[in-house]
């Protein structure tokens, strides 16, 4: 009896495997849906940034750098290659300037993409 039951379980698994769609997605050719809260590519809103530097202080991977000359004159740099996508900057920012999107982080072939200028206060004034 037990043996028959086991055989049926195997048969069930075989039929299920034949019917169901593959577990994997042929990304980038197929649609990939990531969870809403997925910690993916970092997005930045320069208008909200006050240049307080809390994100720089808390970043465990030292992926953010602040060149600050004065309260009004500063540049916030982001190094995506160093980023650990931990979400600490999003947590630390009191103004909601940094946030994680649920998009995958793309590869880059340009050296310039390794450093992103999140905010240049001079450029935003002009």
């Amino acid at each position: 009896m037990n043996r028959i039951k086991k055989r049926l379980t195997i048969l069930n698994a075989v039929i299920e495997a034949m019917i169901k769609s593959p577990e994997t997605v042929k990304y980038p050719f197929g649609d990939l849906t990531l969870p809403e809260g997925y910690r993916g590519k970092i997005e930045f809103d320069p208008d909200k940034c006050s240049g307080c530097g809390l994100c720089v202080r808390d970043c465990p991977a030292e992926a953010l750098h602040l060149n600050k000359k004065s309260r009004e004159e500063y540049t916030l740099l982001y190094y995506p290659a160093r980023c650990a996508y931990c979400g600490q900057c999003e947590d630390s920012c009191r103004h909601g300037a940094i946030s994680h999107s649920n998009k995958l982080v793309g590869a880059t072939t340009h050296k310039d993409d390794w450093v992103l200028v999140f905010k240049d206060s001079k450029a935003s004034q002009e």
Partner: protein
Amino acid sequence: MDKISIPIGPQHPLLKEPLSMMVDIAGEKVLGGSLRLGYVHRGIERLAQQRTYVQNVHLIERICGICSHVHTTAYCYAVEALLGIEIPPRAQYIRALMCELERIHSHLLWLGILAKHIGLETIFMHTWHDREMALDIMEEISGGRVSHAANQIGGVRFDLDEEHGDMIRGILKKLHSQVDGLLDIIETEPAAIARTKGVAPISSDLIKAYGVVGPVARASGVDIDLRRDAPLPPYDKLQVKVVTHPGGDAWARTYVRAEETRVSLNLCEKILEDLPEGDVSLRTPRRVPEGEVIIRSEAPRGELFYYLRSDGSDKPARLKVRTPTLAALSLLPVQLAEINVADIPVVLAGVDLCIACADR
């Protein structure tokens, strides 16, 4: 017969992480072995002294790729104890939920590795598929599949809503039936029993002498589990069933872990049922008052020990981590004696080593 010494590792198909073993054999019998550790030493304890308490949460998470959450949980409870704060009950429950999900995925991963080593590739595929379900839940609620970054000093970084609850309950129900099937295979499949039963039995006295903890100790009849013996909140409010088996062999270790997975599934359901309302985090100061604290937590592999000393600044003066694998490793040469060469993979897999944890 002449004694031959064969090296296993640091890079070897049998090992998932670097560990160097020298095994002495005579014919088909293993006489004993010696170990060499430190291939994945990253100096995390020293690094932690150079970073702030907030940065350390993410550093500590990278000690291990399997039990990452329980490391940060122990660390955060240690910092919170020094700060003299108690996190909101809802945060405690969410931390415990993540811990249990981690235990489920860790045990299923381990079961897959053991099955692969004893030649049951189908079980390996099934368990790793099932493990993905637990990882899916963690990814959905925390945003990360392996590095969850769920903990922060003062609570957790996300909240659960009704939608999450329904999703988790649905997946847990599926996992329940899968784990029942796996337990059935472990208990009845002749191939699995033949490869594991009676292999490298360890007595409870030896376990106590070497200070081995976790499922390996429980599989030798030593009734220890920190979730019941010295519970961190909210385990004091949850009734944790401790699974033990007197066998002490590789089969008993398999049984204990599979049954523990079932217990963890029940605990997850209980946590979701009892989940209190309220906030999930508190704002905490950056500087931690002077003092020292010891926190012990039950990781998937056993007792995890954290010692933290603060000198009043925003960086720890000393952080010491003791992981359960270290004790299990010391017992490995003893286990390797008097077994067949073909049983080496079963013994190695049976202990569920996490070298990255032990080396840090």
